[in-house]
């Protein structure tokens, strides 16, 4: 399968770069993905021909910009099979803003001293801190699903935690462990007791085909820059009836029906969730990224990344045996191409630094998941993560570089 994707590499300008005299081996797609030429060109076209502010204007380029912007919304809706179409998609500036929008838009209306929500110990800070901030104000309870020693969500007390809660928010794929969570199962059990289900799709939507209706969830947050799109844009999809339960987050132009000196009336439709001039060029780039991913087919891209992941897991077992630990599921079973490593006695920063000299881009650190790090008694890991443009020979370089790093510090 890998072979089929070699031509994909030539779509990515950055892959032709050399760093420190070496071929760039980019293994940090969980942080941000590289950008195909077609995405860059779509934004160029926008800035060179169609740039205008959207909505409310009647001239040609403004109509073109509006059509492109709203078309991107429809493309996103269709990419995740949103049952209600474009009207269920709200643009944000990234996954982080998406969670802030849900926390404030939904939480502020529904949460108080007597209510509870459920999060998990493997969440990214984006799905923790907004809830903590809201809790400071409203004083509700936050319960946590814990993580088992084999890097899975411990669902043994799920029903107990859901009892009396009003919302559960959890990640589809862990950005540290690579664990793929059983979204549909959790959603089903939550809905059985009337609990709303929000999913962190930052990694999931970027790497797996997603059908929100099949998953049976109420909302999902994701962003373009991890799915070969531009920085500065993300989205929330939520079911129509979930949106109906939400208040505006930010205030400003475009999200209003009326404003006077006495106050404001929010727009009756989902425009009330988008304040100010939106990320227009970014929406154009987002749509181009989706076209690009669809052109290769998400299921095929996932299969390609799965193959690489399996190979990497196998070959890593031979590096510094007994001292290199994989912090995440050891096989492809319910796991994706995010591989966290702990090399006994060598700090992740030092490993990453040596890898950089080999042209290998990996990320050391807590990956914005400090509670999860603590769960495993770590302050940091080295994280290797795949994108569609990676190949088996990237793994060769990785293994050599890791071996060199180990030799240096051992």
């Amino acid at each position, binding site marked *: 399968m890998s072979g089929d994707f070699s031509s994909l590499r030539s779509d990515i300008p950055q892959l032709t770069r050399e760093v420190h005299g070496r071929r760039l081996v980019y293994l940090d797609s969980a942080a941000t993905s590289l950008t195909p030429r077609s995405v860059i060109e779509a934004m160029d076209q926008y800035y060179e021909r169609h740039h205008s502010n959207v909505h409310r204007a009647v001239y040609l380029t403004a109509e073109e910009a509006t059509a492109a912007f709203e078309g991107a919304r429809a493309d996103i809706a269709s990419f995740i099979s949103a049952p209600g179409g474009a009207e269920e998609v709200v643009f944000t500036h990234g996954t982080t803003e998406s969670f802030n929008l849900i926390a404030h838009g939904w939480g502020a209306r529904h949460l108080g001293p007597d209510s509870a929500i459920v999060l998990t110990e493997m969440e990214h800070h984006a799905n923790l801190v907004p809830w903590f901030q809201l809790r400071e104000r409203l004083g509700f309870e936050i319960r946590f699903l814990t993580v088992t020693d084999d890097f899975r969500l411990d669902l043994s007390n799920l029903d107990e935690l859901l009892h009396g809660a009003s919302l559960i928010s959890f990640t589809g794929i862990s950005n540290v462990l690579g664990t793929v969570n059983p979204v549909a199962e959790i959603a089903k059990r939550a809905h059985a007791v009337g609990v709303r289900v929000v999913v962190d799709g930052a990694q999931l939507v970027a790497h797996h085909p997603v059908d929100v209706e099949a998953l049976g969830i109420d909302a999902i947050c994701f962003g373009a820059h991890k799915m070969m799109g531009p920085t500065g844009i993300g989205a929330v999809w939520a079911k129509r009836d979930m949106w109906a339960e939400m208040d505006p987050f930010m205030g400003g132009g475009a999200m209003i029906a009326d404003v006077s000196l006495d106050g404001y009336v929010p727009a009756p439709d989902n425009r009330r969730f988008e304040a100010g001039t939106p990320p227009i060029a970014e929406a154009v780039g987002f749509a181009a990224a989706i076209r690009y991913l669809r052109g290769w087919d998400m299921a095929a891209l996932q299969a390609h990344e799965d193959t690489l992941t399996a190979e990497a897991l196998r070959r890593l077992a031979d590096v510094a045996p007994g001292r290199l630990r994989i912090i995440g599921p050891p096989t492809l079973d319910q796991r994706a191409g995010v591989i966290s490593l702990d090399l006994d006695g060598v700090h992740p*920063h030092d490993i990453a630094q040596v890898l950089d000299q080999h042209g290998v881009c990996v990320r*050391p650190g807590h990956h914005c998941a400090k509670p999860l790090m603590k769960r495993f008694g770590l*302050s940091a890991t080295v994280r290797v993560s795949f994108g569609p443009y990676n190949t088996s020979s990237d793994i060769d370089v990785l293994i050599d570089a890791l071996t060199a790093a180990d030799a240096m510090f051992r």
Partner: protein
Amino acid sequence: MDGLDDLYKDIILDHYRSPRNRGELPVPPAMSAEGFNPLCGDQVTVYVTLDGDTISDIKITGTGCSISQASSSLMSAAVKGKTTSFAYDRLAVFKRLMTIDDTPGEPVNVRELGEMAALQGVVQFPARIKCAILAWNTLDQVLSTHASPQ
């Protein structure tokens, strides 16, 4: 791998593998402060016993990368038994070495830094400068928050 050799000189690896003045001191009489690099999780605690104006003892605990841990060790060796004003002076020189302090001044006399000069390769790696400076900032904290004003 030139840059890398610059960064990971033998002196650094030696101090990383065999850190000097490792451990704790009872507080009080010793004073201590904890330093933290939130971006990468490096952590150091610096314990200092002052005898008048002299750093009569210093011990360090912590976890982190080779740069932060070697820098802690090098620092402890450099200031132990020295006066606090000598320590402040070294701190200033070290910050200049790391080009954090860009107030104009004399160029850094690398020789006078002794072993600490081994860290000068860090400057080529901006992300690591914070690792190198952590122990020094923590020492600064101990001395300035606990010691009587100079």
